[in-house]
């Protein structure tokens, strides 16, 4: 018989079935048991609602010309909150892209800080001491190598923290994704690559980002496990991230998690998705709404009611208004900020330029 020289590795013909616990109707699947306590489930719902309400408010203001361009999280709340709740803000690092507001909040950044950032105030970049987040990343995928370094650095210091880095299906096409996964596999860095497959990169559909059936299946080639999860199911996301965090803490290295979700609104406020998104998709994914699911689940447990919802809505509105009031009270940016914090001490050239521009201090 002639030797078989057909390739040993063949692409999958269909994507892996994402893990899921909670059905669209808010029922737990058979054998599914959330890792979250009842109080934590309420915390998760609250944070998802805060995330959505904050972006609704921001969108209103942006449409009135009172806020800068930003990327809303609509539809992706469960991925963000489920992940954030599996992390320990004291020892774990979050490395965001630009669509991770609830994660930043949970890690310890204030809502006011996010408002300042969206207003274009330089102080929106301030990261208070002890808050384990990196700055919002706008240059796609550039944050992924940073997360590998953070995770590796913690490991070399013999600390048990992990780093979780957020990016999308679009950013997975960048070289930095590959280089990062590759190094993480080599040095066994406790990093979690949280790929939010929201089906779109501005107008580019997921089908144009990869010829592969899914994203999570890339992981074994780098020497670590990959997981596909229903990104609209906060219980399932929390569970798979918690497991990945535990592996990282035990010294078992990296995990790639593909959270399958859908971007229910625009890329950013500068985008017009009606030019390319099929409204029927929005209808399908609308039924999979991450917040509605948890509300239905809690209702079935007798833990949720219209009254409670109304109370929460009011509390959340008040919280957001208070944050905007705090941001309003923050001093407007000083123009000399353009010369500050370039170096620890200004160079003679910068000092001269500043004097030429604004006069002697």
């Amino acid at each position, binding site marked *: 018989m002639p030797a078989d020289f057909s390739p040993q590795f063949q692409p999958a013909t269909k994507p892996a079935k994402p893990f899921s616990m909670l059905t669209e109707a808010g029922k737990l699947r058979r054998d599914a048991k959330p890792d979250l306590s009842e109080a934590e489930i309420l915390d998760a719902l609250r944070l998802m609602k805060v995330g959505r309400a904050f972006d609704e408010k921001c969108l209103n203001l942006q449409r009135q010309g009172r806020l800068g361009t930003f990327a809303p999280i609509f539809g992706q709340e469960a991925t963000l909150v489920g992940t954030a709740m599996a992390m320990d803000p004291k020892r774990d*690092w979050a*490395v965001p892209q630009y669509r991770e507001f609830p994660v930043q909040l949970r890690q310890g950044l204030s809502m006011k800080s996010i408002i300042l950032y969206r207003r274009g105030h*330089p*102080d929106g*970049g*301030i*990261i*208070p*001491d002890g808050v384990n987040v*990196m*700055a919002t990343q706008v*240059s796609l995928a*550039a944050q*992924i*190598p*940073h*997360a*590998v*370094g*953070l*995770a*590796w*650095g*913690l490991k*070399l*210091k013999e*600390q048990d923290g992990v*780093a979780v880095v957020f990016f999308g299906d679009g950013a997975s096409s960048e*070289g*930095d994704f590959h*280089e*990062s996964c*590759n*190094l993480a596999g*080599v*040095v066994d860095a406790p990093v979690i690559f949280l790929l939010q497959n929201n089906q779109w990169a501005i107008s580019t559909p997921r089908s144009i980002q990869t010829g592969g059936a899914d994203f999570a299946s890339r992981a074994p080639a780098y020497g670590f496990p990959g997981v596909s999860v229903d990104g609209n199911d906060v219980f399932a996301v929390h569970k798979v991230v918690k497991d990945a965090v535990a592996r990282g803490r035990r010294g078992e290295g990296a995990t790639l998690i593909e959270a399958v979700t859908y971007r229910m609104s625009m890329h950013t406020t500068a985008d017009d998705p009606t030019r390319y998104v099929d409204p029927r998709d929005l209808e399908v994914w609308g039924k999979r709404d991450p917040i509605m699911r948890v509300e239905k689940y809690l209702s079935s447990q007798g833990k949720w009611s219209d009254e409670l919802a109304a109370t929460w809505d009011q509390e959340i509105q008040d919280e957001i208004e208070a944050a905007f009031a705090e941001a309003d009270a923050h001093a407007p940016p000083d123009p000399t900020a353009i010369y*500050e*914090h*370039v*170096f*620890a001490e200004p*160079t*003679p*050239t910068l000092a*001269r330029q500043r004097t030429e521009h604004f006069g002697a201090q």
Partner: protein
Amino acid sequence: MPTMNMVEAIRSTLKSEMERDETVMLMGEDVGHLGGVFRVTDGLQQFFGSRRVVDTPLAESVIAGSALGLALTGWRPVIEIQFLGFSQQCFHQINQQISRTRFRTRGTQQAPITIRSPFGGCVRTPEFHSDSMEQTFAQSSGLKVVMPSNPYDAKGLLAEAIRDDDPVLYLEPLRGYRLVTGEVPNEDYTIPFGKLNVLREGTDITLVAWSQAVPIAEKAAELAEEKGISVHLVDLRTLVPLDEEGLVDAIEKTGRCVVVHESQATAGFGAEVLALIQEQAFYSLEAPMRRVTAPDSPYPMPGVEDHFIPTAERVAAVIDETMADQ
């Protein structure tokens, strides 16, 4: 006082800085077991172990990018980009990410990273190994650009770079690695950034150079002196920060100026030097200032590279021209 070449001075400084501060770590391609393709890190992995001297995959972007994460967990990474031309594979990490960390976070996070890289030509390397790109990085706001020309400076400037809380691009003259030797004290010392070094006092014309161009300028100065021209030669040592005052002083001494560098002319750092002098020392000038640089062509194949780099003879001829201007 021991005599060392550039490679030895850099290696001994890396070792002493790693002994001085146990958060200093080295990483890069071939830096560990092999000791670097030019043996700059020879023996350091054997001495400090593979946790602090790390052989990485061949991936410049994640070498630079992960250094930023390492820095935020308390490490002080010294990364090696094997040849400066390859820094184009991680330019966004250096220019956009590392350099801007302090600025973007209003000083709440910083990137104390030293990026070491050999640069420049005339050692018959294959294509893309010989680029001089210091001007590109001088525009990476937030990054210091340090370019020693001799072993004494190599030690003092490298120690300063590693201890600096800002990111520093430390460029090593490839041609001078073994060719340039000098005395290097055993004791600890640093050389502050932003102070040029007067290598030769003169009264007729000022030559400005840095790193690999310094030996060329020195030879040109000798040729000029043979003709009775007194040359004032300064070595900038660091492009960022730039010693503006020192430069103006150096021009005011002679009223004439020639800048020599190995990278291309257009928007090269020489243009910045001449613009600064024009702004700050115009009335002391007695003749138009000139540059001797590479042409605006890509770095060529090694068979013709000797014609690409400025030579002492070309510099001497431009000195003559400038002296002839009344």
